[in-house]
């Protein structure tokens, strides 16, 4: 099934067909990475474009996102590893950001790579994130922003973490649709690293485990 066909099934609400396609692709970890990066991520971008261009409704966009979440969850669970004793990682959306599928994909792939992941979902309050970092000391923090108007929020979040934790601040990696524009946006927000997709992010942070 190519991407266009997958998107057609997504917006038609054919969850079972999408899941079948996902399971066929995600027979192993490499396949799961491919499913996430080559199918789920671009299909979400396509769905967003279809909404922007007036070809699908908000309801259909939500249905498609929920279906992709269902596919991802069902495909990653059989490949997930026990987190016990694994290195700690944080993944969160910044305040006001309500799109969580992207960072969820990252959390899944990290878990499959042996990380003990705390995934905080949408709109994580800065003060609580700082407190959690101080308490649980992750080896890195992944922050996601889907909407470009949330880039300021990403910058404020990173500045608050650095101000509170100083030299104890773990590396901060950013990603999400908001960073797809200008190439240096990740530097403008004060991050240490940027990854264009979940699979690239797993590779980027691999060295931190040693």
């Amino acid at each position: 099934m190519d991407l266009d066909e997958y998107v057609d099934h997504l917006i038609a609400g054919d969850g079972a067909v999408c899941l079948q396609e996902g399971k066929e692709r995600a027979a192993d970890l490499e396949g799961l990475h491919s499913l996430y990066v080559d199918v789920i991520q671009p299909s979400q971008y396509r769905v967003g474009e279809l909404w922007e261009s007036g070809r699908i409704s908000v309801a259909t966009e939500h249905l498609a996102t929920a279906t992709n979440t269902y596919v991802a969850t069902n495909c990653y669970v059989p490949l997930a590893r026990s987190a016990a004793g694994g290195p700690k990682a944080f993944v969160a959306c910044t305040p006001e950001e309500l799109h969580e599928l992207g960072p969820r994909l990252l959390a899944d792939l990290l878990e499959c790579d042996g990380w003990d992941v705390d995934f905080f979902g949408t709109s994580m309050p800065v003060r609580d994130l700082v407190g959690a970092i101080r308490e649980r000391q992750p080896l890195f923090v992944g922050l996601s922003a889907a909407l470009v108007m949330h880039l300021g929020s990403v910058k404020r979040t990173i500045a608050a973490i650095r101000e509170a934790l100083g030299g104890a601040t773990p590396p901060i990696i950013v990603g999400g649709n908001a960073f797809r524009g200008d190439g240096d946006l990740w530097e403008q927000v004060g991050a240490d690293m940027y990854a264009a997709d979940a699979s690239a992010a797993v590779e980027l942070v691999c060295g931190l485990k040693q």
Partner: protein
Amino acid sequence: MAETTMDDLLRDNHDAILVGAQARLRGDDTMGRIAEQRALSESDLSSQVLGFWLQGIRSDLTLGSTATMKQNMEWLVAFRAGHQLPFDDAMVLRMFDELSDEIEARLDNDALRAEYADYRAKASALIVEAFPQ
């Protein structure tokens, strides 16, 4: 006492700026037509749209760039075409100007006024450039 930053000012005056800009836009013909097309009240529509714009302005001023405005304009022009919405650059400029006037009325020192004037000029140019003439 610490000097007020642009970010402090926009955070602390967020609701007042929105209410002020919304009052200035009340009765706008284009806004009324879009509201009717989207089956929203004019008040709900202007609240949503102005909120979106103010968030973008704050993001840009935090970043110290026009990156948010630039990407938002690309998106907005595509959105306008896709949804066949009846607004043009004059309408978008008016919304931006109403918000900008509300923001500028609250700036309390020359450094902030200069910072916003510079941003306002650059962002206005991006709005005009974004729309096919």
